[in-house]
């Protein structure tokens, strides 16, 4: 019995092992294949970005090496000058030279960091991980001097008739670079007495303030002072100014200090991460969020009857709490009886404003809010393109960006009558895009402004903004929702948008064909590579069957003949649109050579542009091909034109057979025959490497 029992147990054990072992082996094999795909994925990415990264690495190393040397030399000189001035007992000059020394040393440390760690790690593909660190490091290094060091040297003013650089109730900590108006900007902190006085007046006191000071003694002019003081009354109504003081020869006002970078610096940083591919998911969300914040703030300005008049990236600060508008120098009441002036900044100022100003039109005769909206459109353009709109509303988008977002820019920069009638309307469109699951799939026709489903401006302007947290009551005392930050990899605006429950998918996001191509970028390397290989295998398999059918009508399969073809037709592209074509082309590796040609050159050109944006290399004509290939292409085109129609299988066979021998350089071919892309007839791709020869 024992023997029988043992035998049964053994059999049972063997049976279990027979099931488990293969399962384990399959599991190990799957893991190994996964590992191989992962390695392939990494290699592919490295190769894709390797060239550009290497160039950036070399350039960066050279730049920083030179900056390091020059910084050290400057630091030594500053030190020598500082020591000399100590001997000469010139206190202010000593401070100046030691501040310069500190600046140089900070720059040297930054260069050294980039030389030793930054550039090598970036070369190894760790750029995104470093971006956050590099963003914080300069602030960390610069912080102590800006905030505290100088502050101890400046005596607290006690008199009412303050001298330049001294302000009653405030302790000056540091200076900011002067703006275009020539006024001096001081970072300061309210004394406890001043803070309690302000609180008693119902004003929320921030940790730090900026004091903008004009003085006839320091070169300011009377018109400047008058203009600023006029703007000040208006800005005071928004709570943007804590207090102000005007005497015979000077004028200053106190604003909350907004820590952070200007929007042009932010835009540059966002684009550094994306190269020429346009903004990617999180960065794009941040960009939309910044534009959204701006329109919300402007809506408040306008609802208070004010016009900022100088909206531009350098007047917008992006801090940890979101976007803030600074520089109130040109703020004007919308109902002012003054004549329009041409103040503002080129490229962000509507040319119509200049035209009207030259006609002598009064402020109250125009809708000044629309000029701010134009500026917002130009700012959004800058965010998307990392460049100013040199051509106004006709400026072209050179980087990939969602069509609906481009539409918002154009609508904001359109002619006065066609422009958004209120900043809140623009805000609603941006809110819709922020909520969209896939912003790339939203069409202009889906936007609230297009559908006519806009709320009234006042309804919109009193909702909470998308900022993560408002540090103090800046906008007319309204309480903005504070959203706690979370330790994720999203930007503050995105986090706030998510916290506000803006993640619900839209129906549009479900149906657009282009979504597949965009989502592919967000997949993990293993999944993307596995899908790509499966797709390629499918294309190869079905392509071979497809080709063999054309080559041998009635014959079911001819693998031997099919494997000779270099380019293969893709499946089911009898009536594709641009999105489908691009989705197919996106499966190619970067730098692939794609020929877009055919009798219809009108539709070829935009497609080439799209292909170029997708990172592939479109061939516009025969310039990039060998002369032999060029001749064959011309011959091929003539053959194709001579054929009755591309639907004729024989014509396709001729084309396929012809390109097999004539276009060895090509990776894909798009043949256009109809009036537009909807009539694309042939879309062919190079076969998988293994079956090419």
């Amino acid at each position, binding site marked *: 019995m024992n023997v029988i029992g043992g035998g049964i147990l053994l059999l049972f054990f063997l049976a279990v092992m027979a099931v488990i072992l293969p399962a384990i082996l399959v599991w190990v094999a799957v893991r190994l294949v996964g590992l191989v795909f992962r390695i392939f994925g990494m290699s592919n990415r490295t190769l894709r970005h390797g060239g550009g990264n290497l160039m950036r690495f070399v350039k960066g190393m050279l730049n920083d090496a030179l900056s390091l040397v020059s910084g050290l030399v400057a630091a030594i000189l500053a030190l020598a000058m500082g020591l000399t001035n100590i001997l000469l007992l010139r206190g202010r000059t000593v401070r100046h030279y030691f501040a310069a020394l500190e600046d140089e040393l900070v720059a040297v440390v930054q260069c050294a960091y980039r030389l030793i760690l930054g550039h090598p790690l970036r070369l190894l593909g760790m750029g995104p991980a470093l971006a956050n660190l590099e963003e914080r490091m300069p602030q960390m290094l610069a912080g102590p001097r800006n905030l505290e060091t100088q502050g101890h040297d400046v005596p607290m003013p006690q008199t009412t008739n303050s001298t330049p650089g001294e302000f009653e109730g405030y302790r000056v900590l540091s200076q900011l670079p002067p703006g275009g108006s020539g006024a001096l900007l001081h970072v300061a902190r309210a004394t406890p007495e001043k803070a309690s006085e302000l609180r008693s007046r119902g004003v929320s006191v921030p940790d730090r303030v900026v004091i903008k000071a004009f003085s006839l003694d320091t070169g300011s002019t009377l018109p400047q002072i008058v203009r600023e003081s006029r703007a000040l009354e208006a800005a005071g109504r928004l709570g943007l100014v804590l207090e102000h003081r005007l005497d015979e020869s000077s004028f200053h006002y106190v604003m909350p200090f907004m820590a952070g970078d200007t929007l042009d610096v932010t835009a540059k940083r966002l684009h550094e991460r994306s190269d020429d591919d346009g903004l990617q998911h999180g960065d794009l969300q941040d960009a939309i969020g910044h534009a959204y914040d701006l329109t919300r703030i402007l809506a408040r300005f306008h609802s208070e009857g004010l016009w900022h008049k100088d909206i531009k990236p350098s007047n917008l600060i992006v801090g940890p709490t979101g976007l803030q508008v600074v520089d109130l120098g040109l703020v004007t009441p919308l109902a002012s009886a003054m004549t329009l002036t041409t103040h503002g900044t080129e490229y962000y100022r509507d040319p119509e404003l200049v035209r009207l100003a030259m006609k002598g039109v009064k402020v109250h005769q125009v809708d000044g809010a629309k000029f701010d909206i134009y500026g917002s459109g130009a700012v959004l353009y800058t965010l998307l393109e990392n460049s100013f709109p040199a051509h106004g509303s006709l400026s072209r988008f050179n980087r990939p960006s969602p069509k609906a977002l481009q539409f918002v820019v154009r609508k904001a920069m359109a002619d006065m009558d*066609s422009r958004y009638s209120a900043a809140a309307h623009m805000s609603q469109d941006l809110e819709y895009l922020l909520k969209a699951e896939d912003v790339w799939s939203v069409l202009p*026709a889906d936007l609230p402004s297009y559908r006519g489903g806009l709320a009234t401006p006042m309804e919109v302007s009193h909702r909470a903004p998308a900022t993560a947290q408002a540090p103090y009551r800046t906008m007319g005392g309204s309480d903005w929702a504070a959203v706690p930050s979370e330790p994720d990899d999203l930007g503050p605006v995105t986090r706030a948008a998510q916290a506000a429950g803006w993640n619900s998918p839209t129906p549009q996001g479900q149906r657009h064909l282009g979504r597949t191509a965009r989502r592919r970028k967000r997949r993990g390397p293993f999944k993307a590579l596995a899908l790509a290989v499966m797709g390629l295998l499918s294309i190869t398999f079905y392509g071979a069957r497809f080709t063999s059918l054309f080559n041998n009508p009635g014959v079911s399969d001819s693998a031997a003949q099919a494997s000779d073809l270099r380019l293969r037709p893709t499946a089911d592209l009898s009536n594709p649109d641009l999105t489908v074509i691009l989705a197919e082309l996106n499966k190619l590796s970067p730098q692939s050579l794609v020929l877009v040609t055919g009798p219809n050159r009108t539709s070829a050109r935009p497609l080439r542009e799209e292909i170029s944006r997708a990172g592939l290399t479109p061939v516009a004509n025969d310039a990039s091909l060998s002369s032999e290939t060029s001749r064959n292409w011309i011959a091929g085109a003539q053959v194709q034109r001579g054929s009755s129609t591309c639907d004729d299988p024989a014509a396709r066979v001729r084309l396929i057979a012809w390109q097999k021998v004539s276009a060895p350089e090509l990776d894909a071919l798009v043949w256009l025959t109809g009036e537009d892309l*909807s009539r694309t007839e042939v879309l062919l791709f190079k076969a998988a490497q293994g079956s090419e020869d």
Partner: protein
Amino acid sequence: MHDLTTRFVGRLRARDPQAWFELWETFGPILRAQLARWGRGRIGPETVADLSQETLTALSSAIDRHDPSKGARFSTWLLAIAKYTLSDEMDKRFAQKRGSGIKPLSLSPQDDDGPRFDVEGGERPDQEYEAQVFEAKVDAALRQVERSAGFEDFEAFRQRVLEGQGGRAVAAALGTSEATISRRAGRVREALRGALSDVFSKYSFTEEDWDELPRNGLELNPKKGQDASFDEALAEVWLRASRRRQQKGRS
């Protein structure tokens, strides 16, 4: 010289600020680019901005002496004034800095970076400059149409013609039918032909100036079925101008 040109020059002579702004808006960027090119390495961007304004000031006095019968092209006339403004400025500078050892700026035709023209009938301005002036005129016409056409009409035209998207894609984007898109684009195309005629009338002194339109495929009096070639030519001009600006922005 066309009647419109006479009227426009008349407005300039009458110091009509709108006319001057129009001239500045259209050709200011080209003047800045040309001055920067000539003064490369010798004058900074601030000076270029000042000089381009001075060029217009000089233009305002030159307009009184302008004789259309001389037959100089508009572009040549504009460039001549920019050249003299710059050379005047450089003369002033070198008079102040004589002996400073800086190589004087040469505007002679032999200079690689200098203008290759002579108002009195010598060599012509280079092709790039001529292309920029032509593109600026087309841009001015586009801006004029953008202002006058409805936003949705112009948007349809922009996407369909300038960006070359397919009719179906544009129709989907704008939530309408292909037929509507074609109709809207057609309306804008017609308006644009009128605007091109208007702008070229203003800024053309010779028949040669006018010939640039058909030479670039922009036929103002089209035969039946020439709309497609007009659209393609316009898109090419717009794309070329955009790329040129992009390159300049980068450099």
